[in-house]
């Protein structure tokens, strides 16, 4: 049994544009231990987000494997990848990516709905998660009625609803002011400490990275 919640082995990612091949990730091997709050840091254009998306199964490596619970998710077909996204991972994006015509509660319950489960069974869980992210009063509001910070809290709640093993966050404070950003990072740290969730976050800010307990530096597609 691997001690890693997620592990990349020999990841290579190439992009083919107009007959030219760009080698963006070059033989990256990295693991994130269960219960860790790791930050992937690096300058703009270091391909850190690409690494995160590959680790989270939203993108495929050109070569290499991504192991989660001993299984190579890079080899999963669409059905298995979709199931994994619903049950095993949660994603928090820079631009929240909430469905605009669904309210807060519906957005949070979306992975549950897609998994074919009954929403009624998740009432208690929804209530608890809304309390954790401090949005109990806003459960009937649509995303456009919320501030950026509140929308990001909804995204975090959505990432938590199915009790996933790992939460991936791509620049979760990149679109927020510094005060709200700090609140979001403190919330992620609290989730990591209180619930023991493994968190892997991409950031270019050293201050943001310090909320975690490990930093992974990426430069020019290589982990340093």
């Amino acid at each position, binding site marked *: 049994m691997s001690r890693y919640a997620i592990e990349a082995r020999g990841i290579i990612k190439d992009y083919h544009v107009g007959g030219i091949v760009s080698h963006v990730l070059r033989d990256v091997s990295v693991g994130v231990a269960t219960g860790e709050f790791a930050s992937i840091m690096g300058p703009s254009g270091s391909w850190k*987000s*690409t690494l995160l*998306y590959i680790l989270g199964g*939203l*993108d495929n490596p050109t070569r290499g494997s991504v192991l989660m619970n001993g299984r190579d998710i890079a080899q999963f077909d*669409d*059905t298995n990848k*979709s*199931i994994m*996204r*619903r*049950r095993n991972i949660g*994603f928090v*994006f*820079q*631009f929240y*990516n*909430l*469905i*605009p015509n669904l309210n807060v509660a519906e957005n949070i319950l*979306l*992975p549950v709905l*897609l*998994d074919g489960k009954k929403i009624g069974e998740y009432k208690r869980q929804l209530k608890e998660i809304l309390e954790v992210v401090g949005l109990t009063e806003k459960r009937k509001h649509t995303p456009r009625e919320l501030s950026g910070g509140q929308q990001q809290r909804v995204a975090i709640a*959505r990432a938590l609803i199915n009790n996933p093993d790992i939460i991936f966050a791509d620049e979760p404070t990149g*679109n927020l002011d510094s005060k709200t950003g700090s609140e979001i990072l403190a919330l992620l740290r609290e989730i990591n400490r209180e619930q023991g969730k493994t968190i892997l976050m991409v950031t270019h800010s050293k201050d943001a990275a310090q909320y975690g307990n490990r930093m992974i530096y990426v430069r020019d597609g290589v982990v340093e």
Partner: protein
Amino acid sequence: MVQIRDLFGTTNHWSRTIKEFTEDGLRTVNAFLQPMQNLTWFILILATVGIINNLIINYIQKRRATAMYKSVGMSNWQNMIMTLTEGLSSGLIGAVIAMIISWLEIKTIFLVAAPRIAMQPKLELGTFLFAGALGVGITLIGSIVPIVKNRSMKIVEELKFD
């Protein structure tokens, strides 16, 4: 006594049977209606292009939303069901409305525009149902493009930028 021969004996004359008269009349009416029939086909093609164009625009607008759904676990199968359900329901609603409106329109034209014409249009239900089914079919065919395109969608590219 006036003889017909005396009145018309020196002029050319001709005669026609009722059958010939009817055929001649139908030819005139058909010649008059032919452009309208051609126009009907043109309108049908235009409507088809319009429906498919709407569906493609709808798909382009919804690419990001679809990527959002896929990022939280929607599979290609679920996306196909969702897109087909959407296509079928919008096609059905559109077809029912179109059938009712065109039925009423034809009836109203004869009532308002030609009240002295002593004939009623013969409307066949089958024709309306066929046209409705064709509309639903076109909407479903239009749903195939989004389904195929969404299968190969690169989620990250759709989500990365706001």
